């Protein structure tokens, strides 16, 4: 059990708790009586484990309208992003051919860093700027495509602002030009409906721990036509049809499969509830003088809100709110006091970016918690502003 003082958890964009129903399914794979065997083994316990792994694959495929054979297990979206971007850039072009990748300035580091790695390997990368409302204009992405472009990578929704990109429009344009599209869906999988076929996706990255599954599990969807050009990044036992070697963690995969089943059944209703809670939160925060919404007002994830409180230093505001588990900037970079590169790309100045907080609501958030958060933020913003020159 956790030992910290009670807090209101509003950081579902960073990580979600594992749903108790998922925990129950995972527990069935642990312990001497559980389905713990190596799914590559041919004995009965191994075959039983393999059956659960494949059942989970079916559940994931159904959630995303993919073929089960097009779902590959990974350790999470970071690995999936690396595999799609590095694996495709290294494996799909003829030796010595010019190579170019299009991505955006507001991607997660798990996309930007592989792209930087590719630049060191001689690949040209174009970083498309977002619009002031945080959305990526599909026309700008398409305009960046060149004859030697071998991949476009655009996130479905931004992890800091929650703003949703029109990956369907980008997917249609890419498909028409024969350029594969990779989508980092870490923030949207299980939260928004995703149909990889309707959206014309070639690769899609998913993390279990953002959708009430366990940490350390994820998947990469690969369009069957793209599989031959995708080079693995790790080698060993040849698991996952040679794309991702390593013994499959049955309990993690079963957890991700269970999370997909729950999302399939409940995501629509949950999105409506979270949208109402998010609006309640914004209505409350708007009463704080000068509060600014970062990003598009409606084209955003149901539970995510990013708000600036000009005149207040962000680190102090976060420190003043020990009863709230929230983020300034993205969780992955909040150890630094550098302003968020995403908010800066949206045109926010350094002080406004630094004064911003991300609130992300989820399955276990209540209206009472939202109201308590508004009260606490209003009180502390007023206190810190009163202490400022």
């Amino acid at each position, binding site marked *: 059990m956790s030992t910290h003082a009670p807090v209101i958890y509003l950081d579902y964009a960073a990580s979600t708790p594992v749903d108790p129903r998922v925990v129950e399914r995972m527990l069935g794979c642990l312990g001497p009586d559980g389905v713990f065997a190596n799914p590559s083994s041919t004995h009965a316990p191994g075959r039983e484990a393999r059956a659960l792994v494949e059942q989970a694959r079916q559940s994931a495929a159904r959630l995303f309208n993919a073929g089960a054979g097009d779902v590959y297990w990974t350790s999470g979206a970071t690995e999936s992003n690396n595999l799609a971007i590095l694996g495709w850039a290294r494996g799909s072009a003829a030796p010595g051919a010019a190579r170019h990748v299009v991505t955006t300035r507001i991607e997660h580091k798990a996309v930007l860093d592989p792209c930087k790695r590719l630049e060191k390997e001689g690949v040209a990368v174009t970083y498309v700027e977002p619009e002031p409302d945080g959305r990526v204009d599909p026309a700008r992405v398409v305009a960046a495509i060149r004859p030697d472009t071998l991949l476009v990578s655009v996130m479905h929704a931004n992890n800091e602002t929650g703003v949703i990109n029109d990956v369907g429009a980008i997917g249609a344009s890419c498909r028409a030009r024969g350029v594969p599209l990779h989508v980092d869906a870490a923030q949207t999988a299980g939260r928004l409906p995703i149909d990889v076929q309707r959206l014309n996706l070639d690769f899609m990255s998913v993390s279990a721990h953002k959708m009430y599954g366990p940490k350390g599990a994820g998947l990469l969807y690969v369009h069957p036509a793209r599989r031959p050009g995708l080079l693995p990044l790790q080698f060993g036992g040849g698991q996952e049809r040679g794309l991702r070697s390593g013994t499959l963690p049955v309990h993690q995969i079963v957890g991700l499969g269970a999370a997909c089943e729950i999302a399939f059944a409940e995501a629509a209703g949950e999105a409506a509830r979270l949208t109402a809670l998010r609006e309640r939160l914004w209505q409350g925060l708007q009463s704080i003088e000068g509060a600014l919404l970062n990003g598009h007002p409606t084209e955003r994830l149901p539970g995510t809100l990013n708000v600036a409180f000009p005149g207040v230093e962000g680190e102090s505001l976060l*420190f003043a709110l020990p009863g709230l588990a929230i983020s300034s900037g993205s969780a992955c970079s909040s150890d630094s*006091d550098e302003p968020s590169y995403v908010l800066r790309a949206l045109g926010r100045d*350094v*002080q406004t970016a*630094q004064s911003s907080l991300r609130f992300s609501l989820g399955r276990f958030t209540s209206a009472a918690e939202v109201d308590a958060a508004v009260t606490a933020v209003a009180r502390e913003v007023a*206190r810190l502003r*009163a*202490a*400022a*020159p």
Partner: protein
Amino acid sequence: MSAAVREHFDALRAAGRLAPGAGRIVTGEAGSREEGTQVRFQWRVAGDRILEARYLAYGCPYTLAACEWLARQLPGRTRAAPWPGAPEDWARVLDIPLERLGRLLVVEDALRAAAAAWA
């Protein structure tokens, strides 16, 4: 962050402005919001002594905690040594990491500016 930083940050009792009254008010300011740290000290002085001190600060929790701690130390101190120690000493007392010393130097600059105004 340390318990000392938490305690002082949570109770910014000396934050604010001095109201006009007995004695002379001197002000010292340093830093800017653009640089991430801005500090203003006000002292009410009479003769050779500080009677009362207030501050306003924009910055990280360490900055605010240091200003609060210093403002509580200042009343009764003399022109010869208007504040206790140096930024390294304040960092030790409040358990502030050395990589944040730059913020404390801004606080010291504001104190120095107040002392110069008193001269």
